[in-house]
């Protein structure tokens, strides 16, 4: 789908802050509120904008720390459907947060979130490894998130500038 420059700009702004008031957004791209609303509606209907989500630092919430694992999965692709069918079998599990087809040493990169390491381990051994096409898995637990989707955790908006300068 070909988008106009303004449409791309609206997406770029929302990617950084999806809660920006529509009046402000409209002004930033020099459109009326109605025009901006129409563009948003179109982008949502065509699923260019899939969803508006919130980036949460769960470590700060007691009892919700959780664990995240990245699992390298090697699979045998099936004739006719390639990797898509295996990927689909995997991504339907709700604990699977993302699935990517990769180039290189393994085929699928699967991100799992669970409440504890044993929960993740259980998922890998019972659900993932037992799939027919899965040849092997390597599980990496994330120890600390420094930056996620372009955002650095715990980076205050520190402005070091003096309050007034020529």
């Amino acid at each position, binding site marked *: 789908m070909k988008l106009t420059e303004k449409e791309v700009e609206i997406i770029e702004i929302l990617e950084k802050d999806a809660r920006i008031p529509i009046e402000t957004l409209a002004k*930033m791209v*020099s459109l009326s509120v109605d025009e901006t609303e129409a563009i948003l509606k179109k982008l949502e209907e065509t699923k260019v904008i899939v969803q508006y989500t919130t980036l949460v630092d769960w470590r700060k919430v007691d009892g919700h720390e959780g664990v995240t694992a990245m699992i390298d999965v090697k699979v045998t692709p099936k004739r006719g459907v390639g990797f898509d069918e295996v990927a689909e079998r995997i991504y339907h599990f709700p604990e699977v947060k993302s699935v990517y087809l990769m180039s290189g040493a393994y085929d699928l990169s699967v991100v799992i979130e669970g409440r504890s390491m044993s929960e993740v381990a259980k998922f890998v051994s019972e659900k993932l490894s037992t799939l027919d096409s899965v040849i092997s898995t390597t599980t990496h637990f994330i120890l600390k998130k420094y930056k996620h989707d372009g955002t650095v955790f715990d980076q205050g908006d520190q402005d070091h500038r003096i309050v007034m*300068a020529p």
Partner: protein
Amino acid sequence: MMQQTKKSYLSETVARLKPSGIRRFFDLASSMEGVVSLGVGEPDFVTSWSIREACILSLEQGYTSYTANAGLLELRQEIAAYLARKFHVKYDPETEILVTVGASQAIDLALRATVNPGDEVIVVEPSFVAYSPLVTLAGGVPISVGTNGDDHFKLRPEQIERVITERTKALIVCSPNNPTGTVLHKEELEAIAQIVKKHDLLVISDEIYAELTYDGPYISFAAVDGMRERTILISGFSKGFAMTGWRLGFAAAPAEILQAMLKIHQYAIMCAPTMAQYAAIEALRNGEQDVEYMKKSYHRRRNYFVQSLNEIGLSCHMPGGAFYAFPSIRATGMTSEQFAEKLLLEEKVAVVPGSVFGASGEGYIRCSYASSMEQLQEAIKRMKRFLDRL
């Protein structure tokens, strides 16, 4: 008994120099909590990591000694390539480019290298606060030319011609302008060029905001027909590359003028900071994407902020460049100082009174929109409340 008055050690020129009008507001704003500042004349971005990283590497490798007086040749070559690529002006990196301690020092050198005692230098106002004092310090006489807010502060040839005398030596122009954000377009520059040629003036063109123009390609004064030979082009890394603290700028000019500037520079400064020069090489080689990103961000903030100012009742032209909005506050009946002070005390929004930038800035305030969208929205909210109360 004989009365002894203590003798002052100060130079009379310096003693007579007016302190900057920003100072009082700076002190006031600094003493307050919770101020939303639109008073900052510098980017809100931190220098991009690739540039900072290049500087760190240069330190690790031990590049901590002086460079050539004119700056690292490698950097001058990058500057020459950059000027040719972006603004279609050609300079010889060996003899026509000088790396300076900010554009500030380049302006100072340009004046000191060319002004004879009593020479008049035309300063177009409202303008950056340093020009007139630097003319005075160079032994010249600053001659203010006011531009007109109703004409979006465009510099018109008649305005220059009106003040030209046989002592007029040079003209300082700045586009995009601080504080008005006004950009001079090709035909406007050409009209000025005609007068400049007719009266054989030197032009000091402060192009520090050249990277930040939003409504069309930037035209350097040196690129205007016949102007290169009489123009000192001044620019730097502070604004476009968000490198204010690195103190790095440059001048490009015909060899005769540039070598005279270099003569002063080698005695007064030796060379610009070495580590900053290495950072600047990286900025010119790989910094373009980051500049584009920042420019896009200012552009959106400009659109938001200027439209919002107009909506809350502060009439403001759409500035073509830099990161300043310069709305009129004349409708309030206050002077720009009164307005700025009252706004600061009552709503804790810091802006700079337009009068600081010259008499023709009276009736206006400078608002920098190089602040986060959250801060800008908060500032608009407070300013609206303030205006509604008047």
